């Protein structure tokens, strides 16, 4: 019975390699579809590996750095054409500064666009840059094309609102809850935004630079008390 399953998978993968993904999506049986997807990923990786061999003649380290820069620029140009004035600060090679307004639309597009296909959000870091400026940084990565990019969004500490990308990458659900828990950045549209590591009724945002811990929490003295030491 599973010979013809192998056959369906292999020709679905061929069709998907030419780029139209729905060849795989319309396999109705869930198991074969996930097997086809895995086979596709393997095929893609095999194709990607022999592409790299072809360009391996010139020394990789130097080309890798410069290839990373222009890759960043290409992504940045793509975003600015698609969403006109969403690029925030000046352009540089390591990350892309984006305005918070239409970040959700950019995220959806980054994930669905064929050539970029950022399907996994690796890490979301909150950071307090001092003088009331908070920043949320997203490291995105594509399992298919094996390239990665870092996107940063600056917001003011008084009105820390960023659209939540929880629907786009499900991992963002907990990442954003942790950033909210530590920095107080509230992510608009997050279905279940509450503290994840600290108790729900803890005051203050611990990782902000201007944070002082509260004296007592439910009657328990918070700062460390040690007798016989000073």
């Amino acid at each position, binding site marked *: 019975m599973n010979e013809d399953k192998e056959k369906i998978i292999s020709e679905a993968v061929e069709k998907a390699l030419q780029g139209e993904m729905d060849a795989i999506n319309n396999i109705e049986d*869930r*198991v074969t579809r*996930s*097997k086809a*997807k*895995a086979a596709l*990923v*393997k095929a893609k*990786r095999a194709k990607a590996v022999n592409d790299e061999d072809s360009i391996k003649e010139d020394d990789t380290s130097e080309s890798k750095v410069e290839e990373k820069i222009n890759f960043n620029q290409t992504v940045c140009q793509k975003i600015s054409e698609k969403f006109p004035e969403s690029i925030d600060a000046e352009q540089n090679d*390591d990350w892309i500064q984006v305005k918070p307004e239409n970040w959700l639309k950019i995220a959806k597009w980054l994930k669905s666009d064929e050539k970029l296909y950022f*399907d*996994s*959000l*690796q*890490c979301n*870091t*909150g*950071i*307090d840059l001092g003088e009331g400026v908070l920043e949320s*940084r997203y*490291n995105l990565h594509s*399992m298919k094309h*094996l390239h990665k990019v*870092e996107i940063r969004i600056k917001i003011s500490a008084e009105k820390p609102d960023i659209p939540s990308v929880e629907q786009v*990458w*499900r*991992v963002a*659900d*907990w*990442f954003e809850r942790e950033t909210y828990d*530590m920095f107080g950045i509230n992510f608009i549209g997050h279905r279940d935004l509450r*503290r*994840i*590591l*600290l*108790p729900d009724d803890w005051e203050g945002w*611990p*990782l902000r630079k201007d944070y002082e811990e509260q004296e007592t929490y439910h009657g328990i003295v918070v700062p460390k008390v040690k007798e016989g030491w000073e």
Partner: protein
Amino acid sequence: MGVVHGQEMVLNIGPQHPATHGVLRLQVKTDGEIISEITPYMGYLHRCFEKHCENVTYEQVIPFTDRCDYLASMTMNFGYVVAMEQLMEIKVNDRVEYIRVIMAELQRIASHLLGIGAFGLDLGAFTPFLHMLRDRERILDIFEMTCGARLLYNYMWVGGLSHDLPTGFVEATLNFLDYFEPKVDEFENLLGHNKIFVERTADIGTMPAEVAISYGVTGPNLRGSGVKWDLRKDDPYSIYDRFDFNVPVGKGMKGTVGDCWDRFYVRIQEIRESVKIVRQAIDQLPKDGDVHQAMPKKIRPPKGSIYRRTESPRGDLGYYIESDGSDTPYRLKMRSPAFTALSVLNEIGAGWLMSDVLGILGSLDIVLGEIDR
């Protein structure tokens, strides 16, 4: 938890429970034995790792990274050290690289042993757990021989190692590997192919590949779902490209791809791969080379930030280090693989029976120290 229907019962698989691998509370809505919704509550083991790191110097961060994932602290040091060396563009000599790979792979074996043992314990098999702890004890002896400690090592420093290998290290490790190789097959027969174990794990908690990628699950859990993603091969760091080892992937031998049995079997195969790597690393180990040679006197990385991922036994361990030029990190974020593995529990665990949900939790192999940081 929303409204609770008539016959549904809210049950706290509470912080003190034998099967939660640490201090984790699963608030669960059950109807008889069938669990309809799981909400994990964490934070009981939160020790403000990231706040601490903002007040200690770069060398002093290493003992804190040990204590995040206390079952694989060698790989936690390794991740931090690789990130720092890339930030400061330090190149360590080959002997240090080889010792680091040997230590990281031995730690991977030890961590997988405990992960599989605890998984078997959740399903009621006591003996394999103790056999695996017995072998893990031998690996801890090897670690104790080199850095004195058995669980939290503070062995890998930025730019080198704290101590060189003692005399007799190579023989001790080779004895261990020869003793250990047949034991892995014994585990596979005693636990893996046991019909009751297969009955309890095959086709249970299946995690399709897209769900795994979208939930950011990485490591053996992701490879169990059929996606061939291993940082040691796909985003190589240190000298992993000098060793040939293959990346085991779940093939659904006893059920569908991505069920508990696959995650278990991927870990067993990974132990075998790690043994292969350690053997190759030992016979390519260069004799000369000082381990303190590339260590900067005062660690002051240039202004800037870096995000570097390494392969810990539980998945992608990422360090995001933002330095402002001083000798204490401005911001240090650790992306913990077990954190994302736990987030997928509700997605793949809802709808199964009580004993299966605890089996699925065991198969995800989470460590609460790393989740709560």
